[in-house]
């Protein structure tokens, strides 16, 4: 293997491929081959291009090339009032719209000092956790698909459809809800919705989840494809600012829900699942157990759900001063919003800290030395949404 060798100067550059592609000589007169994976590759979960430098089938370097979905959320948000920004923030991570809205809405609430009614707070907990389950179900399905397990995909989407029905009943939309408002929620949940939710949780815990474990996670082929692949050491994960299941898969017990307590999470008992080895398999296990923990939080939250309004009295024009960096734990990790407010109805600067953007940075480290087919598994285990990477 020539992987431990010092990098050498590039021999020749193909101008059409840009300046990041290197064709390097290897031992025995061979050269690395450069291959473009994506941007339209089913395993890249959107328009991600990975420039792979290969020695045979072994990855020497994997450089992500992003920006295909870039629409500059941050610039557009400067032209819009705070309330107008909320539906647009859904489009960043379109698989976890509620946590996106939550980050933005709570940042504005911190700036203006708004008090949110308790019922709205608890409902926000329920919706964020339901969103986490939905997002992880989608991850489970597509991750199986990446590794060639089509059955798992079909089963996961059945369960996910159940989730989206619940979202549709409460918010009127399946994906992009615009449900959270600055100061509360748009509307209360309909009658009988809580019962539907609990029956879904019953099915998830007793039927779907054990089925998923047997179908994919405990499958010997799956274990062989994922154990020891893409190992992320804990100190590397922290240094690179990884968050969410990628960080916790490496054994770091760090969760913004516990660290910042942005919603009344301290009233509920739940564990933060962590991995041991930091490989693809551990990240998969962390996501699987997070689904159960989310279900556990929802069950406790439903019991504590008080009556009352779901919307606070909000001034007609919000013109705050100051600045705030607010972060929440999305399904993919730490979603941060940094707002600079200068007394206008629009933010002077709105910044979106995307967990996928930071986690994707680790791809060259994770993929080096593995096979091309493992890169597919590693990308799946980071669980990226390109809408949020590019914003």
């Amino acid at each position, binding site marked *: 293997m020539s992987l431990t060798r010092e990098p050498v100067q590039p021999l020749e550059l193909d101008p059409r491929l840009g300046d990041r592609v290197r064709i390097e000589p290897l031992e025995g007169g061979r050269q690395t081959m450069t291959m473009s994976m994506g941007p339209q590759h089913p395993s890249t979960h959107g328009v991600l291009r990975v420039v792979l430098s290969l020695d045979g089938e072994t990855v020497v370097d994997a450089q992500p090339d992003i920006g295909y979905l870039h629409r500059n959320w941050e610039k557009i948000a400067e032209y819009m009032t705070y309330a107008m920004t909320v539906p647009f923030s859904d489009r960043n991570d379109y698989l976890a719209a509620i946590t996106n809205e939550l980050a933005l809405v709570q940042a504005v609430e911190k700036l203006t000092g708004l008090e949110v009614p308790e019922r709205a707070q608890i409902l926000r907990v329920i919706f964020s956790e339901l969103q986490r389950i939905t997002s992880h179900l989608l991850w489970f399905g597509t991750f199986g698909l990446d590794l060639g397990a089509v059955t798992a995909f079909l089963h996961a989407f059945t369960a996910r459809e159940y989730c989206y029905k619940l979202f549709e009943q409460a918010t009127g939309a399946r994906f992009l809800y615009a449900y959270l408002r600055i100061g509360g929620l748009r509307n209360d949940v309909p009658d009988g919705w809580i019962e539907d939710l609990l029956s879904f949780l019953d099915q998830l815990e007793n039927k779907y989840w054990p089925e998923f474990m047997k179908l994919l996670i405990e499958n010997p082929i799956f274990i062989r494809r994922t154990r020891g692949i893409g190992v992320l050491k804990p100190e590397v994960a922290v240094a690179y600012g990884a968050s969410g299941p990628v960080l916790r898969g490496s054994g770091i017990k760090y969760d913004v829900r516990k660290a910042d307590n942005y919603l009344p999470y301290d009233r509920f008992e739940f564990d933060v699942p962590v991995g041991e080895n930091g490989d693809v398999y551990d990240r998969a296990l962390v996501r699987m157990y997070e689904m159960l923990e989310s279900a556990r939080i929802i069950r406790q939250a439903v019991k504590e759900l008080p009556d009352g309004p779901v919307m606070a009295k909000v001034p007609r024009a919000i013109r*705050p001063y*100051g600045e705030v*960096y607010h972060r929440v734990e999305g399904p993919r990790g730490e979603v941060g919003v940094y707002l600079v407010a200068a007394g206008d109805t629009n933010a002077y600067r709105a910044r979106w800290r995307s967990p996928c953007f930071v986690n994707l940075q680790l791809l060259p480290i994770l993929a080096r030395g593995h096979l091309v087919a493992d890169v597919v598994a590693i990308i799946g285990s980071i669980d990226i949404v390109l809408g949020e990477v590019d914003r």
Partner: protein
Amino acid sequence: MAEHPEAAPAQAGDGRPLHTHQDDKPLLEALPLPAEGTFVDPKAKKKAPAGEAGAEPGVDPVVARLREAFPDVSFDPVAATADGCPIVTVPAERWLEVARFLRDDPQLGFDYLSDLCGVDYKDALQVVYQLRGVGHDRRLTVKVNVSKEQPEVPSVVEVWPGAGWHEREAFDMFGVRFSGHPDLRRILMPPWTPDDVFPLRKDFVDRRPKRERKVRPR
């Protein structure tokens, strides 16, 4: 910039470049750098002159520790965010030294760079760092101001490697040059973007022809 098949200069109908930082009146107005460190409501200040004496940001233990370790560095203006996170301002030439201390000092231990972004002001470009730690709940926001003529900030990639892509994005969007960055090039904008175009600056003008839209009169 590599020669790209789509690198032909984009022009509007009158032959001027599509994206520019000059001529047309920008829609957004750049504000001068706030002297207090952050924008403060002028009315609220008059109303409560000494109401929140306990919330004096200068007494924050993190800021006190920094002042003790770097007596020759002025961290002013010191302020606080809306949720009480202290803000310090560090001169660019001392920033790398302070950053190493922030990470390695056992009393501070900011080993987690949560976010890094640029902000455009009328008279300066600002880089804002959000620092957290994995084992504790201390928080710190660091601001580094640089002039628009010489937007040079030392790169903190060696301190927090995760800053790599954030710095590339700040370079891409604001033109802040991070000295010592191993791979400083555009990340989100296409590679054939002209070298002097930075879309998140306030004076950036998009001169692409507007799409015809029928708007109902109110």
